[in-house]
C-alpha cells in the first residue's frame, strides 16, 4: 500500500438535483475535499447541508436525478474521469466501501448473513468460493462476534441493529479499502450500542490504516472520533480544521451555533425565555402529583414467548414539573407512554391522573380521559394527517371536545399557533409543505390546545436536527411556564433530560432502576444502567475541554 497517496481527492465538485415539482436545486456549490491516508474526516451539518451528497459523490453513488460534475476525483491514487467511468467498478467495493445509515435495509432479508456476505467476497475477488466461508468467519470474529459460525446461518432479522451494522462493517473492511464512507452509521442505534459500534470502527481503522469519511449530524460524535472536521451549510463548506480546534475555537458563526445547540452533559436545565408569563388560564400550582403510576405490569405474547414489557413500574409527575423517563430501546419506555395515554391497558397496577384511575374500558370514558392527557410522537410527519391543513389539525381536538363557534374556534387555533411560535400564514399548509421543526410545532399545538393536565412526550426531539431540537426544547420549557403543563418526557438521550427535566426515572428491562432529581442521578448515579447511559453520551471530550 502506498501509504502516502491521499485516500480521496475531490476538486470542483458541484451537484444539483432536479425534480419535476421544484425544478433544479443546488445541493453542493463547488467543493474541494481531501482525505489523507488513514485519516478520519467528519462531514458535519444539518439535514439539507449537502453532507450526504458529498459523501455519496465520493463513491459515485449519487441519485439518478443528480446533475453532478467535477474537475478532479481521485480514489486511492486512481484518477476517475467521469461518472460512467468503468474504473468505478474496480474501485467501488475494493478501494472504497460504504457503511450505510440504516443496516436493516442494506441486508437482504431473505438471505442468510453467510450467503450474502460470501457472495460479496467472491464477486469482488476477495476470496475463492471454497475459502469464502472461512474468510468470513475470520472477518466476523474481527468485528467482535462471539460465535461467527452460528451467525452465518442467521437471517438479518435475527440480529440486532448493532449486530447488523457490525456485519456491514465486516463487509466494508473485507477488501482492506483505502477509504470507507460511513453515512451516519450509528444514528439509528441506541447510545450504548452506538458507542460499541464506533469503538469497533476505530479499532478496525487503526488495524487496517483505512481512511474514513464520516458523515454525521452529531458534532459531539465528530469531535470524539475524527481527526479533522468539515462543517457544511447549505451546500458549502463553511469551516474545516482539526477536530479539537473546531470544537474549542470555532471560527464560523454556524459552527458556533451548532456547538451551542448540541445538548451536552455539562449543560444545565433550560429556563423560560424572558417575558414568558403564566397565562390567565394556566393551571394553578398544586402540590399533589398530576400523574401517579403504581406497580404497572404489562406483558406481550409473541408467538411462544412472553415479553414482560413493564415489570412493576411506579412513578409520579408533579404539577408543572417534568419527569424524564430514560432507557434504551426495548427497556419498555414506549410501552409506558402508550399505557399513560390509554392506548394499552396494563395487566395489573394502576395509572391515576388527579386521583382518577385511567378507565380500563369504555370508549366514552377513555375519550373523557384524553381531554386531560395528550401524547406527542417522535415523528411528527407520521402523526399528522397528510391531508389535513395545519389549522384543521389543531382544530380537531377542539371540535371533538368543545362546542365552539367558528370565530371562537379560529381564535383558539390562532392562540395555539402563537403559543408554538408558528406564523399564522402557515395555517393552510399541509404537513409535507412544512419543515421537520414546524411539523413538531404543529403536533405540539394540537397537544396543548385542550390545555391538558399532562403531556406525554415520546422522544419528541430525537428525529430533529440539533438546532431545531434546541428550539423545540426551549419552546417546551416556555409552554410549561406559561400554562403550568406537566410533562412525562420519554427519551434515550440523557443530555436532553438534563436540559428539560426536574426528576428522572431510568428504565431498564421494564423496571425503574433509578429515580430521583436530575442533579442527584447525574452526579451520583447508582444503577449500572445509569452509569452506562451517562458514559455513552458522545461529546464528553468537548465538555472536558470546556471545563
Amino acid at each position, binding site marked *: 500500500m502506498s501509504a502516502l497517496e491521499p485516500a480521496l481527492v475531490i476538486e470542483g465538485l458541484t451537484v444539483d438535483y432536479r425534480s419535476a415539482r421544484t425544478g433544479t436545486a443546488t445541493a453542493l456549490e463547488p467543493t474541494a475535499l481531501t482525505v489523507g491516508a488513514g485519516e478520519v474526516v467528519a462531514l458535519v451539518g444539518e439535514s439539507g447541508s449537502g453532507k450526504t451528497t458529498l459523501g455519496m459523490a465520493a463513491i459515485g453513488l449519487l441519485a439518478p436525478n443528480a446533475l453532478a460534475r467535477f474537475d478532479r476525483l481521485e480514489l486511492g491514487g486512481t484518477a476517475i474521469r467521469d461518472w460512467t467511468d468503468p474504473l468505478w467498478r474496480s474501485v467501488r467495493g475494493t478501494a472504497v466501501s460504504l457503511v450505510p445509515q440504516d443496516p436493516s435495509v442494506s441486508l437482504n432479508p431473505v438471505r442468510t448473513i453467510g450467503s450474502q456476505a460470501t457472495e460479496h467476497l467472491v464477486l469482488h475477488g476477495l476470496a475463492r468460493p471454497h475459502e469464502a466461508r472461512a474468510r468470513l468467519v475470520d472477518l466476523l470474529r474481527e468485528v467482535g462476534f462471539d460465535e461467527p459460525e452460528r451467525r452465518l446461518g442467521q437471517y438479518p432479522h435475527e440480529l440486532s441493529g448493532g449486530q447488523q451494522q457490525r456485519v456491514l462493517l465486516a463487509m466494508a473492511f473485507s477488501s482492506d479499502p483505502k477509504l470507507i464512507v460511513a453515512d451516519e452509521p450509528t444514528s439509528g442505534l441506541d447510545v450504548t450500542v452506538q458507542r460499541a459500534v464506533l469503538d469497533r470502527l476505530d479499532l478496525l481503522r487503526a488495524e487496517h490504516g483505512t481512511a474514513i469519511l464520516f458523515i454525521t449530524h452529531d458534532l459531539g460524535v465528530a469531535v470524539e472520533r475524527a481527526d479533522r472536521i468539515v462543517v457544511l451549510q447549505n451546500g458549502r463548506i463553511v469551516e474545516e480544521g482539526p477536530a479539537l480546534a473546531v470544537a474549542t475555537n470555532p471560527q464560523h458563526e454556524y459552527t458556533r451555533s451548532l456547538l451551542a445547540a448540541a445538548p451536552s452533559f455539562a449543560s444545565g436545565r433550560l429556563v423560560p425565555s424572558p417575558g414568558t408569563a403564566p397565562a390567565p388560564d394556566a393551571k394553578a400550582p398544586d402540590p399533589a402529583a398530576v400523574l401517579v403510576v403504581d406497580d404497572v405490569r404489562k406483558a406481550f405474547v409473541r408467538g411462544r414467548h412472553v415479553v414482560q414489557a413493564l415489570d412493576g413500574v411506579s412513578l409520579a409527575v408533579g404539577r408543572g414539573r417534568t419527569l424524564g423517563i430514560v432507557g434504551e430501546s426495548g427497556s419498555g419506555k414506549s410501552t409506558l407512554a402508550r399505557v399513560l395515554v390509554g392506548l394499552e391497558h396494563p395487566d395489573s397496577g394502576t395509572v391515576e391522573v388527579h386521583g382518577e384511575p385511567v378507565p380500563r374500558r369504555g370508549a366514552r370514558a377513555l375519550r373523557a380521559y384524553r381531554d386531560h392527557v395528550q*401524547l406527542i410522537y417522535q415523528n411528527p410527519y407520521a402523526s399528522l394527517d397528510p391531508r389535513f391543513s395545519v389549522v384543521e389539525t389543531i382544530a380537531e381536538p377542539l371540535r371533538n371536545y368543545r362546542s365552539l363557534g367558528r370565530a371562537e374556534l379560529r381564535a383558539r387555533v390562532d392562540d395555539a399557533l402563537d403559543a408554538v411560535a408558528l406564523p399564522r400564514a402557515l395555517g393552510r399548509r399541509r404537513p409535507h409543505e412544512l419543515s421537520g421543526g414546524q411539523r413538531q410545532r404543529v403536533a405540539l399545538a394540537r397537544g396543548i390546545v385542550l390545555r391538558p393536565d399532562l403531556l406525554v412526550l415520546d422522544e419528541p426531539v430525537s428525529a430533529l436536527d440539533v438546532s431545531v431540537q434546541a428550539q423545540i426544547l426551549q419552546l417546551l420549557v416556555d409552554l410549561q411556564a406559561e400554562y403550568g403543563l406537566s410533562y412525562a418526557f420519554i427519551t434515550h438521550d440523557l443530555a436532553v433530560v438534563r436540559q428539560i427535566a426536574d426528576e428522572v426515572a431510568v428504565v431498564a428491562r421494564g423496571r425503574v432502576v433509578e429515580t430521583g432529581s436530575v442533579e442527584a442521578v447525574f452526579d451520583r448515579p447508582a444503577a449500572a444502567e445509569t452509569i452506562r447511559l451517562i458514559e455513552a453520551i458522545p461529546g464528553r471530550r468537548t465538555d472536558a475541554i470546556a471545563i
Partner: protein
Amino acid sequence: MSAVRSLLVGHRGAAPRPSARPRRWTRWIGLSASAAFVVLVLVGAFFPTLLTGADPLAVDPTAALQAPSAQHVFGTDYVGRDLYTRVVYGSSLSLRGSLLAVLIALVAGSLIGLVSGYVGGFVDTFVMRVIDVILAIPGLLLSMTVVTALGFGTVNVAIAVGVASVAVFARLMRAEVYRVRGTRYIEAARLVGSSRLRILFRHLLPNSAGTVLTLAALEFGGAILAFSALSFLGYGAQPPQPEWGSLVNDGRGYLQTAWWLTTLPGLVIILTVLAANRISRALDPDQEAVR
C-alpha cells in the same frame, strides 16, 4: 438503499447523467393525446350534434354498404345509415352506461371495503370471503347472469357491469384502509378524541381514496369493453339504437364485404379503452413518482 446493495454486490451503481435532459415531452404527448381523445368521445356522448349534422337513424337504401369516403368517413351500413354518425351517437349510450357502471362499482365497493376494513374481525372475514367467491366468477359471466335476472336494456347492462366490479373496488379499498388504519396519524386522531365516524370519513376515506380513484379510471376502460361486449351479445341497446357493441355485432355478417362496419367501431372502442388506461396511469401517484 438499492445503491448500497449494488455497491456491495458489485453491480454498477446508478451513475448520475452529467448533462441528461428530462425526457418529459414523450410522456406528455401520449398523455395529451389520450386526454384529447377522451374529451372528444365525451363531447360525442353529451353533445353529438357538435360532431355530426346527420341523423343516426336516417336510412338511405341507395347508399347502402359504401366504403369510407370523404362524404361518409366511416362508410355506410346495409341500409345506408352513416356509420360515423352512428358511432358518435353510439358513444352516448356506451359512455354513459360505462360511467354509471363505474360509479356503482366505485360507491358500493368503496363503502363495503371501508366498513369491512375499519370494523375488522368477523365482519371483515365474512365480507372478504364473499368477495373471494365473487372474484372467482368471470366478470362477464356474472354480468350476464345479473342482466338476465334484471331484464334487457342499457341501464340494466350498466348495473350488471357495475355489480361485477364491485368486488375489485371493495378489495382495494379494504387494503388501503388496512394500510392507513395502522398509521400514527389515525392513532393520533383517536388520541385527540375523534369519534369512529369522524375517523372513518375524515381521516381514513380521504387518505385511502387516491388509489381507488386511479382504479376507477382504469375500470372505466374495462367497463366500456364489458358494456360493449354485452351489447354485442344483444343484451343492451335495442335496434335501431346505435351502441358501439351492437354496431360491431351488426357488421358481423358483412365481414367479408364491408370490413369497416366491424373494424372502425371496434377501433374506436380500443382507442377509448387505451386512452382511459393511459390517463389512469397518470393518476397513479406511484407511477408518476417513478416517471
